[in-house]
Each structure stands twice: as structure tokens, then as C-alpha cells.
């Protein structure tokens, strides 16, 4: 098992290097000279030359990359052109907001997706199965920014139950924090709930056909006990790990959700940076997101090995 884990970790390193090259290359796609963007109205050749020297723009591409990646490895993701602050500080300030939203969305997705998947599998080919599949497909097909707008319209504007936008940190007032994040978290978790529903259904259908389930039924156990104690416990392992793999995709959804609900998180940071042509921030956010995503995948892999006794003892 250790050697498998070692191989998995070793595979990550070249991926991270390639991600860093990809992120670095993003800047090369930018039309025009970055020095001109940074200089703004200033067109003095001396100032432009100074900017180019400071940013290593007058060096060959390979040297620029090694300079940039050297800084990244020392924790320097660059300097925001607009806010005039290190990108790392901005990332550290915004990441907890998105992490809270993502974790709440994950919990909501499990609470909705797993029970729906169980019902769908147990009542296979019944009305409940078709209804759950239909709801799941609808969940996958709904753009989360539209769902967010519709929820604001109904829950906030019409019913006045929850605030339509804004964010209160958990440490400041947990009640207000939950009130401001529950609706965005539901919107963010909606598509994940649909994915989990499909995984749970498929895993439960496989588990319900196993010999141990037949044995449990033959022993005369109640059906609910057979389903929840015997089938679900085995079906949940792949579901939870596959769900963890999907956690990274929540980061994508967070971009739009945070925009709709005006939540000052990671997603809003990248959108604001895009509109202000603050390219170091865009690069930094993409790099951090990719690293978080790769790490989550690794954690999911490890969790799968630990949760599955057959793989653990292999």
C-alpha cells in the first residue's frame, strides 16, 4: 500500500510542474505588452524599460519561468497590480470564505444526494426512481447562477426569509454567517447533490445484489436494517471518495455563486482581477486552485485506500 501511495505522490510532481508551466504560459496569451498595461497613462520609455527589467520581461521566456517559479516556491505569488498587495495575502484572506461555502455545500449535497440515491436504488424502476433521476438530471442542468437569482427572488425578495447578499464571517456572528451563506451553499451544492445521487444509486444497486445482502435478508432482518446497515455501509465508501473528488469542482461553481450573492471569496477575487486586468492575481488564483484540486484528489485517493480494507491490506 505504501508503494502505491508513493507512486501516486510521485505522479503528482510532474503534474504540478506542468500546471505551473501552463499558468505561466497564460500570461503569454495576453495581447500587447504587460509593461504598457502596468504603466497605464505613462508612456515614458525609461519607465517602461524599468518595469520590464523589474518584471524580468526583457529576459528569455525560460529564464522568466524559472524566476517566477523560484519565487512561487518561496511563497511569493507576485504582487497585485491594482490592490498593490502580495497575491499570497489576498489568497489567504479570501480562501477561508470559499472554504466555508464549499464545506457547507458539500454537507448539503450529501444530505440531499445520498438519501435520494438510496431511495432510487431500493425502489428501482418505480415512480420514486424515475422522479429521483429526473430531479438529479434537472439539478445537473440548472446553471447555478440562475438558481441563485431565482432563490433570491423567491426566498429573499418575495418571502423575506434570508438576506439576498453579503457575508458575515463565522467568527463574528455564527447565526448571521449561516443566514448569509446557507442559500449560496445550497446553490453551490445543488449540482454536487445530483452527482452524489447518481453515484449512490449505482453503488447501492451493486451492493444490493451482493451475497452478504442476500444472507442478511435470509436471516430475516428488517429491510431497512439490510439497506442501511449492510448495503449502505459498503456503498458509501466509493460515494464519499468520489464526492471528495468533486470538491474541487465546487471551486468553479463558487466563482459564479459568489458573484451572484456578493460574497467576497476566492471566486470574486478572480472575477475582479479579470476585469481590472490584474494578471498576477489571475495567475496566482489559478495556480492555487489547481494545487488545491490536485491535493484534494490525492486525499480522496488515500481516503479510499484507508476506507477499503481490501486495498489497505494489499
Amino acid at each position, binding site marked *: 500500500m505504501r508503494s502505491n501511495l508513493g507512486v501516486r505522490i510521485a505522479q503528482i510532481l510532474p503534474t504540478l510542474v506542468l500546471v505551473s508551466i501552463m499558468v505561466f504560459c497564460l*500570461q503569454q496569451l495576453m495581447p500587447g505588452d504587460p509593461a504598457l498595461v502596468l504603466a497605464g497613462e505613462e508612456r515614458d520609455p525609461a519607465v517602461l524599460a524599468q518595469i520590464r527589467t523589474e518584471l524580468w520581461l526583457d529576459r528569455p521566456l525560460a529564464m522568466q519561468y524559472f524566476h517566477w517559479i523560484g519565487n512561487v516556491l518561496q511563497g511569493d505569488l507576485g504582487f497585485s497590480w491594482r490592490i498593490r498587495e502580495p497575491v499570497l495575502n489576498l489568497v489567504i484572506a479570501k480562501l477561508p470564505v470559499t472554504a466555508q461555502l464549499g464545506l457547507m455545500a458539500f454537507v448539503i449535497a450529501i444530505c440531499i444526494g445520498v438519501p435520494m440515491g438510496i431511495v432510487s436504488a431500493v425502489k428501482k424502476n418505480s415512480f420514486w426512481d424515475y422522479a429521483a433521476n429526473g430531479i438529479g438530471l434537472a439539478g445537473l442542468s440548472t446553471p447555478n447562477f440562475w438558481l441563485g437569482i*431565482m432563490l433570491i427572488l423567491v426566498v429573499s425578495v418575495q418571502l423575506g426569509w434570508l438576506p439576498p447578499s453579503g457575508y458575515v464571517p463565522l467568527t463574528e456572528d455564527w447565526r448571521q454567517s449561516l443566514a448569509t451563506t446557507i442559500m449560496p451553499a445550497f446553490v453551490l451544492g445543488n449540482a454536487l447533490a445530483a452527482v452524489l445521487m447518481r453515484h449512490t444509486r449505482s453503488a447501492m444497486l451493486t451492493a444490493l445484489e451482493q451475497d452478504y445482502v442476500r444472507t442478511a435478508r435470509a436471516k430475516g432482518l428488517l429491510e431497512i436494517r439490510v439497506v442501511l446497515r449492510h448495503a449502505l455501509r459498503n456503498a458509501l465508501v466509493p460515494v464519499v471518495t468520489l464526492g471528495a473528488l468533486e470538491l474541487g469542482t465546487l471551486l468553479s461553481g463558487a*466563482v459564479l455563486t459568489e458573484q451572484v450573492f456578493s460574497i467576497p471569496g476566492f471566486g470574486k477575487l478572480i472575477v475582479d482581477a*479579470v476585469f481590472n486586468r490584474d494578471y498576477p492575481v489571475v495567475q496566482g488564483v489559478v495556480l492555487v486552485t489547481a494545487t488545491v484540486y490536485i491535493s484534494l484528489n490525492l486525499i480522496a485517493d488515500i481516503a479510499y485506500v484507508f476506507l477499503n480494507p481490501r486495498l489497505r491490506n494489499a
Partner: protein
Amino acid sequence: MSATTVDQAANDAGAVMAKAMQSPARLAVRRFFRRPAAVFGLFVITSFVLLALLAPFVAPFNPTQTSWTLIRKAPSWAHWMGTDENGRDVLSRVIWGARASLLAGVISVCIASGVGVPVGLLAGFVGGKVDAVIGRIIDAMLAAPFLILAIALAAFLGPSLQNAMIAIGITATPIFVRVSRAATMDAATNDYVEAARALGNPPWRVAFRHVLPNIVPPIMVQATLAIAGAIIAEASLSFLGLGQQPPAPSWGSMLNSAQRFLTQAPWLAIFPGAAIFLAVFSFNLIGDGLRDALDPRAK
């Protein structure tokens, strides 16, 4: 054995023979049309395509024509979906917006499959170091979440529908590489591929003449589902202001401006969003239907 039983047996054998002689494509089409949900999806998408193609004739008003006397009018007989903040007819903009969304969906998937399928074919067919290198590059591309990478690409390329399509196409490429690589590796083990090799065909000919036609079904399924994803991605980029630029209509950009008038004019948000949902839902239904129809294990 009575004459009727013999006739019956002959009829049954004839039916079995006739079924065996049907082409796999014809059987798949028959299986597809036996699924009401997939047929419904196909009907909706055909309607959207017709509306998009015939937009100049079908749309009741010019989608960019403003009118200061018609600002934010609720749905009525004259304007079925109401009017927007500039007095433009929402129905006409939804119809014209179908062009942008469907075009973005189809073109970005053409880019993704046009690049991804040959690369996947190469990786799966050649294997070894080529496969390992391509695999690592694909892992790296998949490491950045789809929309974040598309936003970054669209930002660096500049905001426009064309750049949004390129960004979505590039971002969706890795999944086509993966699907076609897996299908190629599966198809390459078949006897007919061995036979083609044994006959002395060069590798490129074996790959393109014998393997490629056999990996089309999974790619078709992936392409249908990818169009659904690309429509959402285009709407998302336009919603953020990185796709179709105003005053040209697009479902995503319509939702963007609708956000500011949610309390006064909710219809501005309802109809374009419903159009996105219906198009994406229908493509997903078709994708599911195709998967079941093209899977040989499907009954």
C-alpha cells in the same frame, strides 16, 4: 410437428436472422427512439435549432431595437416575455440568444473533439512514452477546474464570444483525449485490428481506417454531454461579461443585466434562465439516450 408450429418456427428464425442482419447503427437508432425522454430532448433541441436558424423571420421584433416608451413592461399579448431595461423585446432576444448559445456549444465542442480525438487516438494507439507524456499534460489541464481555466483563458484572450468559444474548447479538450484514448485501447485489442496489422497496413492507416470508426459511439455520447456543458460555460462567461458583448443578445448576458432589476422586472431573469435550463436538460437527455442506445449491453 404441425404445419402451424413449423411456420411459427420459420417466422421466428426469419425474425432472428433479420435482426442479426440489421446494422448496429440502425439498431442503435431504434433503441434511441424507444426512449421517450431522449425523443423529447431531441424534439426540444430541434426546435431550438430551427428557432436559431430562422431567428430573423421568427423573432417578432429587432432584438437590439430600444424603445424608451417600453422600458421594463411586464409580459403581455404584444410582448409575450415582456421588455427589458432598454425597452427591447425579451422574446426576440431569447430567440436570437439561442444562436449564440447553440453556436458556442457546437463550435467549442468541435474544437475540443477536433484536437482531443486525434491526440487520444495517438496516445491509445502508440502507448509507451507518448502515452505517458500526453497523460501528464492532460492531468495538468484537468487539475485546474473547468470554469476557472476558461475564465482565465477568456480573460487573457480578451472578452468576446469567439474567444469564449476558444477558451471553452481548449478547456474541454482533455476529456475528449481521455475518452478517445480509453476507447482506442479497447478497440486496438480486437481481432480485426490485429488482422489489419498482419496484412501490412501502416500504423496510421490502421488507426484511422480501422480503429477510429469503432471509437465514434463513445465520442458521440461525450460530444452531446459536452455541448450541454459548453452551453452552461458560455452562459457563465457571458454572465460574467467575458462572452457575448452587448448589445448582441446572449442568454448569459441577459441574466447579468436582469440581476439589477430583480424586484421590478423578475421576467428578465426567468425566461433566459429557463431557456438555458431547457437546452442543457435536453442535451443531457439526448446524451443519456445515446449512451443507452450505443451501449451493446443495453437491452
